[in-house]
């Protein structure tokens, strides 16, 4: 039977506020355990949460960026469950009246097309603490530093049809929240996590099949792998005539499998009710419009601008705008050298290759955008050749790895002796010498048919470059040679 895959993603993104959603504790990553857990975060009796205005602003910003309806009245609810990393015994979240309603994003597919995926909603909630299950005398250790960190949970419509689309969706969301500056996007630190809902149905059937939810997938690669192994698992069961159990599963990347998370299947009963400690959050059109005005250029808009105004190809513009850091770096380079195409070639070519090879992120690039831009500007003004630029690039990379700031680009070109001779007098002198020393070749040139002379000039160029130890500007050498030789004909 032919099956259709139905996927919906729930993405949790930590909001980049300084303090927690309902308390004045720091949200900084990596602090000693429980040093950033206040009385509110610990869920002690008699405390009251107070909502962080920045968390609200960031959620609204996200909503405006995905063209969503914004909830002018949003309400916090309690989702009740017992787990030690949630000391209050409930999670404060938004069930019926989320801050962000229906919106949409366009995902970029590998064949170069894009597809619109609707976003059902995004709501504000608090993160839980962390349980550490290493051996503490047979007990679990609880660190509540993360408890109360603001999250938005972004819920997609079940419109995603395969693992690659799911990755494209996750990547685009990552790109949007980092462009907006509302989430640092650090997947390895858990700043963004993804729950994947997967089900299969016979092709053509309207009704959804039973779904499973793969929890807490924290990399783009794992999203693709987890979904693909889960699709396989479900297909095998269904084709054997079995049925799928609705359950929560975990992805194990080592064993390349998903497995059920709960030993005994108790239907979740979260007994949601409106949180009596928090009043409805009310915002008006002026508030929303003021935030809409602060929206930065988003990845899709930036890509379009680079294509329309700077003549970059769709592929190049897509690559360069996929991450906020790369896009910012690229534009700094391009503005500095005022040549977007040349800047694109260097950033996507030499620089990306070096970053990949050395496993360095663009944000930690040993070569600053300013230096790369200056170097490209020197190619443009013929100070250095393309070949010489590679040596300058290498030198900049090496000196950037050290603590010292090193030489600026011009000093480096000077000290490496890569400055091209573009002085026409000097080049003419060398050319004259070469022509005088190669009389036979000059005679051949003069006697040759005009259409064959173009090829023959290569010999003289080579001699001049050799005589100048590679420092002569090849473009000028060509021009001067042609003038002088043609004058003899």
């Amino acid at each position, binding site marked *: 039977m032919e099956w259709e895959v139905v996927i919906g993603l729930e993405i949790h993104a930590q909001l980049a506020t300084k303090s927690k959603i309902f308390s004045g504790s720091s949200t900084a990553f990596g602090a000693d355990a429980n040093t950033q857990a206040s009385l509110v975060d610990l869920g002690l009796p008699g405390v009251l949460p107070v*909502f962080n205005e920045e968390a609200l602003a960031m959620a609204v910003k996200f909503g405006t960026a995905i063209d969503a309806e914004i909830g002018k009245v949003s309400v916090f609810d309690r989702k009740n469950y017992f787990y030690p990393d949630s000391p209050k015994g409930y999670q404060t979240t938004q069930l019926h009246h989320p801050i962000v309603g229906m919106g949409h994003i366009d995902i970029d597919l590998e064949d170069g097309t894009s597809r619109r995926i609707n976003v059902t909603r995004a709501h504000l909630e608090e993160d839980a603490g962390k349980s550490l299950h290493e051996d503490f005398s047979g007990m679990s250790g609880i660190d509540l530093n993360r408890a109360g960190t603001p999250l938005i949970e972004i819920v997609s419509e079940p419109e995603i049809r395969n693992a690659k689309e799911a990755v494209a969706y996750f990547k685009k969301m990552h790109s949007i929240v980092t462009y907006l500056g509302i989430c640092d996007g650090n997947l390895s630190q858990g700043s963004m996590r993804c729950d994947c809902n997967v089900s299969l149905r016979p092709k053509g059937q309207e009704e959804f099949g039973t779904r499973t939810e793969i929890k807490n997938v924290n990399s783009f690669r794992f999203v693709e792998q987890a979904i693909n192994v889960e699709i396989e698992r479900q297909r095998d069961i269904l084709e054997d005539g079995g049925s799928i159990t609705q359950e929560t599963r975990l992805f194990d990347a080592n064993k390349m499998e998903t497995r059920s998370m709960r030993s005994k299947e108790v239907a979740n009963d979260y007994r949601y009710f409106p949180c009596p400690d928090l*009043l409805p959050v009310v915002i008006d059109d002026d508030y929303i419009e003021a935030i809409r005005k602060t929206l930065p250029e988003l990845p899709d808009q930036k890509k379009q601008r680079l294509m329309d105004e700077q003549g970059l190809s769709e592929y190049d513009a897509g690559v360069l705008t996929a991450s906020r850091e790369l896009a910012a770096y690229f534009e700094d380079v391009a503005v500095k050298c005022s040549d977007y195409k040349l800047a694109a070639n260097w950033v996507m070519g030499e620089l990306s290759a070096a970053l990949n090879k050395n496993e360095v992120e663009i944000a930690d690039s040993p070569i600053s955008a300013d230096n790369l831009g200056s170097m490209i500007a020197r190619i443009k003004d013929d100070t250095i050749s393309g070949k010489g630029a590679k040596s300058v690039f290498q030198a900049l990379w090496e000196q950037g790895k050290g603590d010292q700031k090193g030489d600026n680009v011009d000093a480096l070109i000077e000290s490496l002796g890569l400055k091209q001779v573009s002085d026409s007098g000097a080049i003419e002198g060398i050319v004259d010498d070469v022509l005088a020393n190669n009389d036979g070749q000059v005679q051949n040139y003069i006697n040759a048919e005009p259409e064959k002379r173009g090829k023959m000039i290569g010999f003289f160029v080579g001699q001049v470059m050799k005589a100048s130890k590679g420092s002569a500007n090849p473009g000028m050498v060509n021009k001067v040679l042609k003038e002088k030789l043609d004058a003899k004909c």
Partner: protein
Amino acid sequence: MALDRSDVKSIADLARLAISDENIDKYSTELSSILDLVEQMNAVNTDGVQPLAHPTDAVQRLRADVVTESNNREKYMANAPAQEEGLFLVPKVVE
């Protein structure tokens, strides 16, 4: 609305309350009568009445995004029954 014994057991389980077997019938009668009381409100016509999340007209106040809390771990952990390396220790919870 009548709650039977299994309803009472599952409610107790959700609330992590230990109840003795002989009290279950008593709880089911009492909880059922509370639900009956609430049930009477269904007789009221609520057409055109907005759902109410809170009894007052007040709206949520916001606080500035400023870190105001300092590290008080030692004080806050003073009452913890078990701790190690700055962590609260709880019975093992691996599922």
